[in-house]
């Protein structure tokens, strides 16, 4: 009887397992294999041992893209976390049109990234008569400051991308909102009775209570930042001087533009290992800093 129900269960999940094997296990396994080959896609792969991985050791462009990705990841996660917690805290307070404000914060995340990138590219136009960003700088400083040429230097191009990344904090805000709702009122009241002010309550009560949610969002943020691709591709094309050239763009170029599928696969494996290690490190750090209720 038990054996029979196992068979029935396997039969039902069979299609999913089949799909998982064909569309996930097989490609990942092939990517690992191709990482040890010289493969142009148009010719048969030739095993080259660890050559692709050795090449990484003195690939200056890889150093550049990893650095750019790290900078983008750290800053976008840092500022994104602060912004989304702040927005969630504001949206959790009773207010008129609360649903509207919540929808307004989430709505940008629904738009396709490609469309947003095109709009932002226009918004960053250096001429204040065209670019909204420079118009705002002009307006807020009463004309005292001229906006930068956003895509003319590496610093400003990266800043432009970071600012744009804050556009889609909506999903994180929703998760933080849910987390904030779970903070017991009694803790707020107890802290208030003890004379703790609003900031103190936020840092000593709210933040520890939502720390598992922060951990989750940071991990998702790391994975997203490590795979950033479409927006810089459209907005900057990786320039100027490769200052906004990221790891995923490099993998794509190696695979489909330069025809080096072997090296691209090795770079993909590196990306996977980096994300895995960072996630592991964050989870390890989480053991010390994250508070789990009931744990």
């Amino acid at each position, binding site marked *: 009887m038990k054996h029979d129900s196992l068979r*029935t269960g396997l039969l039902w999940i069979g299609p999913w397992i089949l799909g998982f094997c064909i569309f996930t296990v097989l490609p990942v396994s092939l990517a690992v294999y191709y990482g040890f080959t010289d493969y142009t*896609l*148009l010719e048969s792969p030739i095993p080259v041992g660890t050559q692709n991985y050795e090449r990484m050791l003195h690939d200056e462009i890889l150093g550049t893209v990893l650095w750019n990705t790290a900078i983008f990841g750290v800053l976008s996660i840092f500022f994104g976390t602060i912004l989304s917690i702040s927005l969630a805290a504001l949206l959790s307070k009773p207010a008129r049109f609360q649903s509207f404000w919540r929808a307004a914060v989430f709505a940008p995340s629904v738009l396709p990234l490609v469309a947003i990138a095109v709009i932002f590219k226009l918004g960053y136009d250096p001429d204040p008569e065209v670019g909204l960003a420079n118009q705002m700088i002009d307006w807020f400083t009463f004309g005292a400051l001229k906006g930068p*040429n956003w895509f003319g230097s590496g610093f400003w191009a990266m800043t432009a991308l970071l600012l744009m990344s804050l556009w889609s904090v909506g999903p994180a805000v929703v998760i933080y909102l849910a987390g904030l709702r779970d903070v017991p009122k009694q803790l707020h009241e107890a802290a208030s009775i003890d004379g703790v002010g609003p900031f103190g309550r936020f840092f000593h009560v709210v933040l520890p209570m939502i720390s598992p949610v922060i951990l989750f969002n940071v991990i998702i943020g790391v994975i997203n930042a490590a795979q950033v691709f479409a927006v810089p591709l459209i907005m900057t094309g990786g320039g100027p*001087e490769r200052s906004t050239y990221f790891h995923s763009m490099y993998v794509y170029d190696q695979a*489909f*533009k*330069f*025809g080096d599928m072997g090296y691209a696969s090795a770079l993909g494996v590196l990306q996977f290992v980096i994300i895995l290690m960072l996630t592991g490190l964050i989870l390890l750090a989480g053991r010390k800093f994250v508070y789990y209720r009931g744990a």
Partner: protein
Amino acid sequence: MTIDAKTITRRTALGLLAAGAGGYAAFGPERRRLHSGGRVVLDYWEKWTGHEAAAMKVVVDRFNESQGRIFVNYLTMGGIDQKAKVAIAAGDPPDVLGLWNRNLPFFSQCGAVMPLDQLKDYGITESSYAKAVGPLVFRNGRQLAAPSTPSSIALYYNRTIFKEVGLDPDSPPRTIEEFDVAIDRLTILDSDGDVERAGFLPTDPGWWSWCWGGFFGGHLYDEKTGLATVNSPQNIAGYNWYQSFPKRWGLDKLRRFQGAPIDNPSPYRNFFSGRLATTIQGPWLPMFMDQELGKGNFDYGACPFPVPAALADQPPYGPIEADILVVPTGAKNPDASMEFIAFTQRPENMETLCTGHAKPSPLSTSSEAFIREHPNRAVAVHEEILQSPNAYTTPWITGWAEFGMALGAGLDQIWNLKSPSAAAPLAEVQIEASEILQREADRRHRRGQPDPWEEA
């Protein structure tokens, strides 16, 4: 007979799966190989859209009507080179494929295109083509591709502005030295030094970043030795001239000039609006002029791009490119593909196509009617460059995409004045390019393929 509920569930599940698979097999996508009339169907993938796609459609229709054995199924798409790689790798390529000449080294080195030797039977040889076009598609005596539409790049100028500043529009600058003087006369700066009208800007539109050294006699790669020559004195001179523009007017001022609002999203907007007096462009420019400004409303002239005085007496220098047709390896009907390609190479079809694209003909000679009725009245300038031994294109290397990207990063440094001269950035590009070429050589050796210079 009792029916077990569990059995029904299993049967239903298996039946549904089987029905789905059967339905897919019966009604799912299938490549058409035979037309309803029993004709062999050729799938022809091309990258063009709009009027360019329409021009080839005329030729395809003409071919389909000209005989009853072959039917060409013409499909246009974006990202064609990448899609083609996947299709060829998967063993299901189209029968005819439209690529760019810069793709050919990689595709041919990988054995992904079939030599078009059979075109000889149709009377097509290297001498059928303009002098500079033949080497784009022939290698070591074998034809690897057929040109569809070529282009050569020239200097276009606004004759009205030339007259306005006292320059003779019938005698455009021939040397860089003359051009520099003309640029200063054509340029208008306001009281703050902001550029109101630029005599010329190498970054407008900035599509041929690899071309600047070539006007000074430089090459990026030496085919005889297989070595990169990015930082040769000629290339340094060319890119120093390129850098002279931000040095002359100021980088910020140029950025503002190029980012200024104009009610025209076209890449030609500065030239069409008179903010740019001269521009480096391809033969299609007048067609867009007519479309955007109305036929005959813009008085333009064209000439080969100026070169240093020492080279001025030689045949014209200029970058060239070509759209090409290839037969991918694994194509199901290679003979029929050859027949179609041979049809496109006939002078009357080639001239129809090139007129539709507003480009010069790739053939060794053009008819008088082609020149006379061409939408670009300066098409002879472009044909002259296609016939010149000094015309040049991107290097015949499989790693050009990567090489070009390295050059682009170097150019950013040069343009952004990160270095007082082009020498240091080009030296960096030279190192990077040498590494790319070395990897290319390693790959060839690994696969037992000869080095191109040895083959030659």
